[in-house]
């Protein structure tokens, strides 16, 4: 009954009564239509849980949602290495590219772990710019423990590079990705084997060619290669950069003619 009454006023109230009184309104105050400023919809003073959470959540700057990358790779990313994403690296030269990916973030203070790639060339990693004092090498766990080990690492380290030699289950990867998104780390998978999930960003090294050597003379000096990135959502447009991977001193350097591969 009450509700109907309110509705009635709500609908039938002339808009003039809600506005400022007319200057020529000569009615005595007591005859004015009663206090119309009553709140017809109750003001909600208790915020919902979601609102409270939004209010107390610390501000995250855009730069904190990404990890830095070296200039040679900047063209592959929209802003930087997005936290909470997965990256697949494949093609001949995948390890060099993975090192280049780790270089920017580790030299800015992030930690990286390599799980199950005993062959990773540490000297090359150092030359590529990876801060070796923040790099840990983890031996390949048993397939049954793989998910737990990688899960423990992604919870605390910014970059985790995996090269599983076994088929990783879809449920394991789903759990892992949920944790990565929650903790804001980045998973880099090196290699061409099957992966049960599509990567947020897939990087492939193509058209690699070595320079500096001939038939019994010279030495390997640099490799010109093109890196192609395809991704999901915002990164769906295919991008590619040409670079020296590695350059004569071992670091990844953008090619002289960008985009020409």
């Amino acid at each position: 009954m009450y509700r109907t009454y309110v509705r009635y006023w709500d609908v039938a109230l002339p808009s003039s009564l809600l506005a400022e009184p007319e200057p020529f309104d000569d009615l005595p105050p007591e005859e004015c239509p009663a206090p119309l400023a009553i709140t017809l919809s109750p003001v909600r003073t208790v915020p919902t849980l979601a609102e409270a959470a939004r209010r107390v959540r610390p501000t995250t700057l855009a730069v904190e949602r990404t990890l830095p990358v070296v200039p040679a790779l900047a063209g592959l990313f929209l802003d930087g290495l997005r936290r909470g994403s997965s990256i697949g690296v494949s093609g001949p030269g995948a390890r060099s590219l993975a090192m280049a990916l780790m270089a920017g973030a580790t030299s800015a203070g992030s930690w990286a772990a390599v799980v199950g790639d005993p062959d990773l060339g540490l000297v090359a990693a150092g030359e590529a710019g990876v801060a070796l004092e923040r790099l840990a090498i983890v031996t390949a766990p048993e397939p049954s423990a793989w998910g737990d080990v990688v899960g423990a690492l992604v919870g605390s380290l910014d970059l985790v590079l995996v090269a599983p030699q076994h088929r990783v289950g879809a449920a394991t990867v789903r759990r892992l990705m949920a944790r990565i998104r929650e903790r804001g780390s980045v998973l880099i998978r090196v290699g061409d084997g099957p992966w049960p999930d599509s990567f947020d960003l897939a990087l492939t090294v193509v058209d690699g060619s070595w320079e500096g050597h001939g038939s019994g003379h010279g030495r390997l000096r640099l490799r010109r290669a093109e890196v192609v990135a395809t991704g999901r959502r915002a990164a769906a447009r295919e991008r590619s950069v040409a670079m020296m991977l590695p350059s004569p001193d071992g670091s990844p350097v953008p090619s002289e003619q960008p985009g020409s591969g």
Partner: protein
Amino acid sequence: MTEPVRTLVVRCPDWPLTALGVALSDPAVVLTAGRVVAASATVRATGVVVGQRRRRAQGMCPEAVVLERDEAVEARWFEPVVAALSDITPWVEVQRPGTCAFGVRGPVRLFGGEVPLVGNTAAVVRKALDETLGEGTYPGCLIGVADGPFAAGLAAGLAARSVDGKAVLVPAGATPGFLAPFPVSALERPDLADVLVRLGLTTLGTLAALPVADVVGRFGSEGLDAQRLARGLDGRLLQLAGQPPDLAVGIEMDPPVERIDQVAFAARSLAGSLHDGLARRGLACRRVVVEAETGHGERLVRRWRDEGAIGAAALADRVRWQLEGWLNGPPGVRPTSGLVRLDLVPEELVNAGSHQAGFWGGATAADERALRALNRVAAMLGPGSVRVPEWRGGRDPAEQMTLVPVPEGPVAGSVDGPIPVVPHPPDGPPWPGAVPAPSPAAVHAEPAAVDVLDAAGRTITVDGRGVVSAEPVRLRQGGGAGAGVISWAGPWPVDERWWDPSRHSRRVSLQVVSDDGLARLLVLEGGSWRIAATYD
């Protein structure tokens, strides 16, 4: 400023060994986290010291039995000693299993002087030890009396070397002079001591002589605490102004709990809430009273002291130890019914002090988190499974870097950064003949054999002058046609360590780019070619 409380410390030397049932004449070391925490006298005579790594200790004394520390057992065996001391004073504080302390002001009146008090204490402890461990198996405790528990603890440590054997009494007021010659490592703050020694402050006396303002300015609250200890004062200033209401926490257990694991579970959550309550007011406590009560009204009260402000997990452990000793004790001691109540009462509140990363290097929060995770993974996968790179130097990509196990335990505040290894080539002598940059991105742990063939299908050889027998044309791994060679460079002969027959290595390396798009580093050694590395 509060006066330091005149304190008597009872210390049972080599307690971790005794608790594990080692006779003092047997050679044995007790380890925790890979480091020595106690060693029997015969082992110490060979040069093994507390804090050494396991391997080094074993190297010095191979016949020693290596045991893992068990603090719960230590606490359980120590419980009768603490119970016996309750006859002298109810205010016994256990610092850790094997060491306890009490203020002498009350009992000294009862016994009429500190010397009779020390004698009585020694007799009481002696009797308790004989009853638990067996007559004459343990040489007895050490006793130190001084102003403040820190100085009394050091005095007890000295007692082993004193003339009459078992006790050192530092006269009232003489404590600062007593402390002065001790090295700063006696503060048991390794990071701080390390810096102090580098600054030329090697003894507590030199630290105590510094102006307070300078110490605070340079080392903050940690330095202030250390200097107060060095001056013979209490470590931290007590929070006396405006005692906050009641920070004690307690839990009623209904039905009565008889199993130790259930009590420990309750203690853990209780310790957590005690800490939350303290932390909310920015406080920590130096002493915690643990009170347990059974359904028949029996009460067990113990005081635990820890200068480093007791953490929640450590406190839960202490509650567990204390109750284990009680619930599993001999029939006369054991309570006759289950526990119905457990209380934790914080005493001697101090300002918690803010946690601040040291400015002399050390680890950041991210480093600590990462190392904790790596240590956890190492625990899951076994020792040596998580490693960090260390520069060794060499000519081969495989030997330039080696992997060492990730450091164990807390590394916060290691002086040289998060991991004390050398990850980069130091500016030392070069390695002529090393494989030049760029280095291969994949260095094979187990190099695979490969046939390097010339146009006629013969294996390429390299003569003593470093000349290849023919141009390499094809690489073949196992069966199959293999990959064609696009270009190659080399050979580069290396003849290393010819003076050492066991490590002598003579080899030739060759860089080869094949038509599968890969560049490889091939090594000929002992007549066979192997793929040492791939330029992935």
